[in-house]
């Protein structure tokens, strides 16, 4: 990641002040801030961002995994957070390898994460520890494979 430049986004500064180890990197692109969070701090960082009175990221907009196969760690999981009263958005990103595609569930922080995590499990095969009901949601239950992985063909035999 780029060396210590002053943070443009005050939320990142605040996050660093809370726990420096939780910010493994920051990406600024087209006015959007992405904070790269190590997996072990994800749950705590989410809780902090959602409940800290000066931040109030009480709305989880979306969870989007991206598969960068064959690059390792292949999965990037993006959490799009929104603070309705502060009119602010931020994106958290966790990178995980294909061999160990497990993340802590954030359903306890935002109940809406339930279906988003099920979708990520269904289409990418990422497991969420602590999820109350982790099963396929869009594909049939007996389906084999994870269709949105890059090594899963769009057409022809699997």
């Amino acid at each position, binding site marked *: 990641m780029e060396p210590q430049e002053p943070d443009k986004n005050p939320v990142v500064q605040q996050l660093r002040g809370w726990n420096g180890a939780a910010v493994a990197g920051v990406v600024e*692109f*087209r006015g*959007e801030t*992405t904070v790269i969070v190590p997996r072990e701090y994800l749950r705590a960082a989410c809780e902090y961002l959602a409940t800290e009175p000066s931040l109030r990221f*009480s*709305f*989880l*907009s*979306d969870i*989007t995994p*991206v*598969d*960068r196969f064959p690059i390792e760690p292949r999965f990037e999981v*993006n959490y*799009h957070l929104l603070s*309705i009263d502060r*009119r602010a*958005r931020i*994106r958290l990103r966790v990178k995980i390898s294909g061999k160990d595609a497990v993340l802590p569930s954030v359903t306890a922080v*935002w*109940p*809406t994460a*339930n*279906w*988003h995590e099920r979708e990520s499990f269904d*289409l990418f095969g990422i497991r969420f520890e602590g999820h109350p009901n982790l099963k*396929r*949601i*869009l*594909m*049939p239950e007996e389906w084999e494979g994870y*269709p*949105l992985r*890059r090594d899963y063909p*769009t057409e022809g035999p699997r």
Partner: protein
Amino acid sequence: MTVTVETPPATTRNIGNAQNMVLNMGPQHPSTHGVLRVILELDGEIVLKAEPVIGYLHTGIEKSAESKTYSQVITLTDRIDYLAPLSNNLGYCLAVEKLLDLEVPKRAQYIRVLLTELTRIGSHLVWLGTHAIDLGAMSVFLYCFREREEILKIFEYLSGQRMMTSYFRVGGLALEPPPDWLERVRRFIDAFPAHIDEYEDLLTQNRIWMGRTQGVGILSAADAIAMGCSGPLLRGSGVAYDVRKAFPYSSYDEFDFNVQTHTAGDCYARYVVRVAEMRESLKIVRQAMDKVPPTGPFRAEMPGIIPPAREEMKTSIEGLIYHFKIFTEGFAPPPGEVYQVIESPRGELGFFVASDGSAKPLRVKVRAPSFVNLQSLPKLCEGRLIADVVACIGTTDIVLGEVDR
């Protein structure tokens, strides 16, 4: 007048009791608005537990998008939410334009606003008509579809298609609008306020309508936020969040309109919000009609990315080369990820587009408001009568094409 239903408190409800009846509602059921299946556990007529089962209309749009060029994906977005295709076009085009760091000409921006607001009215009309027919009001359905037809005719006049218009393209619009198109829009919006009054005459003070919707499907503001609900579902619970105001796009900050909210959080509140939103959309359409310049570019200029004008393609060699390259190879935005959010008729519609620097997107993710809103269905109908499930499904205004993608 409100109908009160004796609801047993949650503690006395006996989920899993052998006496309970498990009922499959859908996936083929007229009031599920498509192929939604809800597994209901019933104690008599009281719903103890409701579990939505989705995926019957999953067509792999996000997967297909990865093997198409950026421009080809636009045709897929029409088919996500088939009641508001132009909203989807807009969200996706804005995301790609953000990736390209591209400014769209004002004329195209205003036309986009005008047409997406007409889309919102058309979508709300389908919602109102089907919601009313689900609850037994037949005539409203017929009136709503009559007016929606006029909106579809306007779309057809502009793009050649009634529903799957694909009229918005990266950088602007697909075609120059026909010269007298604003006349047709004016004819519609002059007649439409009287039609809204007509629907309100039929429903707003209607005792059956109030009985079926007031106090039914209550969602508190805290629950709505926790469940990620957006759009009229969130505003019907008293949270004044509208992407058009909070994060303006496509020049929405230049328009004067109000965010409609209601505090009751029941089906009736969401009805009031959506009807009021139709009136607000009319206001925006009127303003947009005054703002749209009669002539001017309808597409941005960016050689190699935006197709050149037809005339240029025929007369200049560069134009021909660019035209050929764009339609055979596509264009490659710089590597990066963007998340663009718009206010679709159903709520916060997000497009996450990741580019790896090639001509095809690495990932297109649709944050579908119907998908997220549907998750709150058990909250709305548990503890209520089975007849209210129909009202609760209707009030969430889901489009199964968007839920399953």
